[in-house]
């Protein structure tokens, strides 16, 4: 019989205490001591299992636990100890069995039964959950358990093939109907569950009926739940209840004149009524009762109300724009009451000082002609009273002027601007920024200066110029402005994101890493934001920092594994049915995050490089750290990734036809599934070569890699030319290996094949060799150069490692005839790689010398190469500029180049 009572609590407590403070050594000693006296005491065995698990002795721990489990224990402390062993190891099914057994012996213990249900939840066992829920409901007569069971059916339906899915969901519906008839449905969350079931089946009419026939108290609760209101309104639209929808949105708007969703429902309904000839119950046409003029009148009445308030809301005014825009686009024959141009001008007169003004108006400016746009901007400018004396008004004017510039850019009025005008424009923006500073002297450290967006806009202009002319000096000018402004608004993350991108474009990584750190990015943001520094972090050759930055993002994925299932359990516990599917989805999106895999592959890439300084290390790395089953790249795997990377957080005022600033500032295509494929296959090829068995698996890998690098170069493909070269080279190395094996098996004709492959690798290496970089000027030095150098070293490294692997095989086999010839071929390859690396090293050394003494030269180029900004001409700023060039630019370049030189030296 399994019982805890055979060991007294007094004796066990010290063990618990030792475990709690992670003193496992002491815990184990005490546990063993007690076990000597009572070798069969289950609690002691279980605790010993826990201690072993915590100290990494998984196998022993599991063995002990299964001994305990066989005895079918039901004492909570024993169950808990075993659960604590099984859970971190992901052995949820063991926990399920454990509690199932316990419940069977104690059918009336509600707590145990709850644990059993939650174990099923953690195990994603929807069917088991459903049955357990029913059993719990039958035994303990608590309504919640019934709804647990219904919820589980919904999840079963979601995860079953369609034929079964229908059965599950209709069963769920029947159970729900029964629950309602027995008056069990009492909470908003249970109504949510009912809605999930009906909406999944597109039963909109039934869903609406449910909502309209709720008991008074429940109806009242639902009326105060925003989500339920939205569901109801959507249902009104979906069932064509236009009049009711209008009434509902009107009453929402009486309370909150800024409720955008309500306006959309209102406007949608109005247009439905106008366009159809639906009749009401008395046979009267609806569009006779209600037309556009009624809608306008309603909006005007809301506007009047707002106009009387000091703090007028934008809602009714934007809604008018929305209404007339739809009139223009849908009903060609009807004229809008007021032209969009007029409305937009009226809007900026009222709300031109709001920082949201730009975003508010964007959707309504799309069809503006150049003429209209110009007129609009002129009107906007004219409406600003720049001579006012009042400080508050002056501050409002700053925002108005910012909005003018943003709209001007968005409307494309700057697209034809020439270089000198553009620089003058930048100067004007900078002057506006400096003028605005005086009003912000009392702002807190944590606040942004009023004119910060002037600087953002100025840097956008400079980025345009860079993209047009390809000269780095524009990027430097932008960096100087942003860096300077960052001193005044220490936490402006828009500045920081732009700086990260601009520095990276110049081949600089240390400062971006600092900026990224200063943003305090953590938890879920690691998944969405880390790409700003981790993407192609190997380019800069500062390997340790890059590896660290990549590793720093990984905890979020582990946290998701550990925390999110517990939260799903919480949602059941509090019967929050509206969140269970959401949590499951969240977990899935994070677990299957594209970024997670991209980081993983980048880490392997970086580690492969750093480990192969020493042949023994890289062999050990391939042996222990590379697991082919973790390097999935097939289509179904790739397409089921979720891309959570945030590419929209950077502010963008570019016109809708042009690229966004985020796209404008990326130096290389964003990583995609093709990239993922290439860098999943590369380590796999080396793994097979290292294992020296299962050679047949190499051919499909090589072919897949060859296909990937041959892909047509179209917009959006996530690989660079250099990455194609890496792929091609590794594929050739794979072929080299296969052919070598053929030779070893005695296929004489393969010797010639081998020599051909080696020649190809050598000549490809020469082609990709960075000879055109022999005369790099500092003012041209950019990411492209760092990237060429680093990928060249990477390519050479792959050749060196493969070469050594093959060489080892020759050495192992005693010197048969022919081996000498093979050895010579490999020697030629190795000599060629070394020669190339030697010359690269020389280039890098030259470059390093240039950087060491080149700051003044660089600065004079930045100033003279193009039209120079006033900021840069101003001697007061000279110190800041020199500081940036020395501490942020040169320093990072030098670190990268020295690190590359070091990497080469290890290999020659």
């Amino acid at each position: 019989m399994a019982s805890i009572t055979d060991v007294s609590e007094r004796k066990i407590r010290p063990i618990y205490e030792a475990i709690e403070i992670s003193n496992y050594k002491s815990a184990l000693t005490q546990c063993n001591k007690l076990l000597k006296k009572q070798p069969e005491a289950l609690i002691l065995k279980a605790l010993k299992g826990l201690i072993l698990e915590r100290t990494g002795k998984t196998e022993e721990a599991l063995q002990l636990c299964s001994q305990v489990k066989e005895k079918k224990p039901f004492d909570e402390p024993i169950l808990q100890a075993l659960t604590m062993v099984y859970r971190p190891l992901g052995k949820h099914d063991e926990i399920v069995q454990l509690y199932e057994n316990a419940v069977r012996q104690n059918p009336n213990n509600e707590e145990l039964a709850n644990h059993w249900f939650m174990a099923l939840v953690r195990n994603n066992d929807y069917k088991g959950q459903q049955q357990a829920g029913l059993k719990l409901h039958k035994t303990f007569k608590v309504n919640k358990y019934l709804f647990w069971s219904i919820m589980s059916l919904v999840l079963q339906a979601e995860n079953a093939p369609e034929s079964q899915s229908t059965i599950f969901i209709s069963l769920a519906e029947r159970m729900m109907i029964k629950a309602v008839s027995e008056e069990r449905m009492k909470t908003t969350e249970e109504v949510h569950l009912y809605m999930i079931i009906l909406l999944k089946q597109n039963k909109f009419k039934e869903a609406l009926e449910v909502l309209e026939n709720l008991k008074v108290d429940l109806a009242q609760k639902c009326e105060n739940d925003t989500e339920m209101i939205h569901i109801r309104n959507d249902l009104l639209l979906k069932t064509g209840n236009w009049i009711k929808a209008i009434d509902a949105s009107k009453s929402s708007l009486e309370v909150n004149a800024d409720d955008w969703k309500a306006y959309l429902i209102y406007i949608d309904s109005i247009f439905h009524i106008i366009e159809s000839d639906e009749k009401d119950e008395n046979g009267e046409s609806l569009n006779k009762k209600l037309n556009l003029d009624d809608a306008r009148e309603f909006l005007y009445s809301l506007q009047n109300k707002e106009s009387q308030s000091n703090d007028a809301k934008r809602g009714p005014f934007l809604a008018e724009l929305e209404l007339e825009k739809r009139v223009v686009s849908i009903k060609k024959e009807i004229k809008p009451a007021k032209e969009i141009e007029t409305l937009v001008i009226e809007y900026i007169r009222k709300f031109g000082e709001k920082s949201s003004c730009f975003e508010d108006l964007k959707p309504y400016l799309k069809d503006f002609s150049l003429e209209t746009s110009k007129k609009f901007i002129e009107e906007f400018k004219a409406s600003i009273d720049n001579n006012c004396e009042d400080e508050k008004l002056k501050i409002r004017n700053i925002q108005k002027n910012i909005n003018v510039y943003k709209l001007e850019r968005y409307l494309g009025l700057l697209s034809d601007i020439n270089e000198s005008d553009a620089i003058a424009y930048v100067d004007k923006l900078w002057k506006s920024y400096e003028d605005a500073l005086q009003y912000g002297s009392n702002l807190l450290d944590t606040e942004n200066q009023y004119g910060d967006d002037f600087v953002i806009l100025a840097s956008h202009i400079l980025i345009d110029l860079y993209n047009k002319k390809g000269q780095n000096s524009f990027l430097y000018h932008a960096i100087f402005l942003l860096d300077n402004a960052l001193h005044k608004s220490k936490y402006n993350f828009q500045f920081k994101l732009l700086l990260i991108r601009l520095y990276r474009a110049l081949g600089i990584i240390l400062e971006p890493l600092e900026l990224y750190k200063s943003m305090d990015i953590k938890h879920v943001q690691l998944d969405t934001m880390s790409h700003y520094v981790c993407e192609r972090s190997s380019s800069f050759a500062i390997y340790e920092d890059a590896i660290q930055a990549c590793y720093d993002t990984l905890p979020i994925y582990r946290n998701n594994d550990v925390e999110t299932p517990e939260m799903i359990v919480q949602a059941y516990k509090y019967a929050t049915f509206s969140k269970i599917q959401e949590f499951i989805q969240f977990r899935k999106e994070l677990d299957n995050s594209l970024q997670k895999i991209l980081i993983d592959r980048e880490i392997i890439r970086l580690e492969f490089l750093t480990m192969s300084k020493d042949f023994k290390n890289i062999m050990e790395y391939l042996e222990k750290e590379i697991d082919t089953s973790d390097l999935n790249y097939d289509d179904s795997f790739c397409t089921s990734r979720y891309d959570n990377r945030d590419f929209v957080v950077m502010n963008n005022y570019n016109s809708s036809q042009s690229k966004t600033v985020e796209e404008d500032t990326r130096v290389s295509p964003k990583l995609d599934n093709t990239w993922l494929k290439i860098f999943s296959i590369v380590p796999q090829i080396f793994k097979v070569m290292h294992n020296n068995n299962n050679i047949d698996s190499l051919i499909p890998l090589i072919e897949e890699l060859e296909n990937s690098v041959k892909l047509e170069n179209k917009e959006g493909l996530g690989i660079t030319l250099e990455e194609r070269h890496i792929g091609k080279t590794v594929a050739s190395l794979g072929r080299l290996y296969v052919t070598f094996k053929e030779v070893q098996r005695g296929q004489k004709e393969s010797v010639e094949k081998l020599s051909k492959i080696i020649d190809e690798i050598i000549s490809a290496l020469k082609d990709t060799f960075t000879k055109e970089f022999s005369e790099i000027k500092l003012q041209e030095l950019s990411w492209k150069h760092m990237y060429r150098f680093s990928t060249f070293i990477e390519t050479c490294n792959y050749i060196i490692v493969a070469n050594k692997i093959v060489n080892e095989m020759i050495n192992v086999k005693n010197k048969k005839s022919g081996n000498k010839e093979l050895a010579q071929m490999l020697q030629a390859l190795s000599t060629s790689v070394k020669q190339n690396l030697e010359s690269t090293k020389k280039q890098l050394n030259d470059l390093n010398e240039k950087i060491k003494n080149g700051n003044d030269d660089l600065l004079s180029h930045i100033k003279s190469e193009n039209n120079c900004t006033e900021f840069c001409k101003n001697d007061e700023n000279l110190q800041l500029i020199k500081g940036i060039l020395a501490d942020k630019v040169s320093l990072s370049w030098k670190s990268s180049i020295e690190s590359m030189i070091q990497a080469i030296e290890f290999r020659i």
Partner: protein
Amino acid sequence: MSELRRFKTTDLFRFNNVNLDVLTETYNISFYLTYLARWPDLFCVQESPSGTIMGYIMGKAEGRNKDWHGHVTAITVAPEYRRLGLADGMMKLLENVSEKIYDGYFVDLFVRVSNKVAIGMYKKFGYSVFRRVNGYYSSGDNNEEDAFDMRKPLPRDENRESVIENGENNIVKPEDL
């Protein structure tokens, strides 16, 4: 102009424009999901017509007997959406749910005593200082700061027992909360 709706779990992937602001703390998964699992109707977001998250509020219901109340755990608005009345809308929603669904006596919140802008705003919304909590905010580098515990009574507190006059002088220690 916005849509005030419940916070969806996957909004966590899209709230960077709000959370990168230095005064908005980013918490671990459990923190957000615990609120969503327990008080899904007290965690709401304001979304712009173009689908950008403008700000959000998270709250809970807690306390015993006459201390049963709604609590504002966090309220934040992205810099470019400030001064549009968004906080007002979110506070009203939280107060409404605290009153109608949770049947609380009052709503309360904590604010840094230095945050004059926010304090002024809460006063405008009908909140008054109930007490001052010594060293409530303590970040690593000795930057301890006091908090005002501000409250607004709900209709259930007919006699306004949850608020007092001159609460600024009513000083307590964090451990006595």
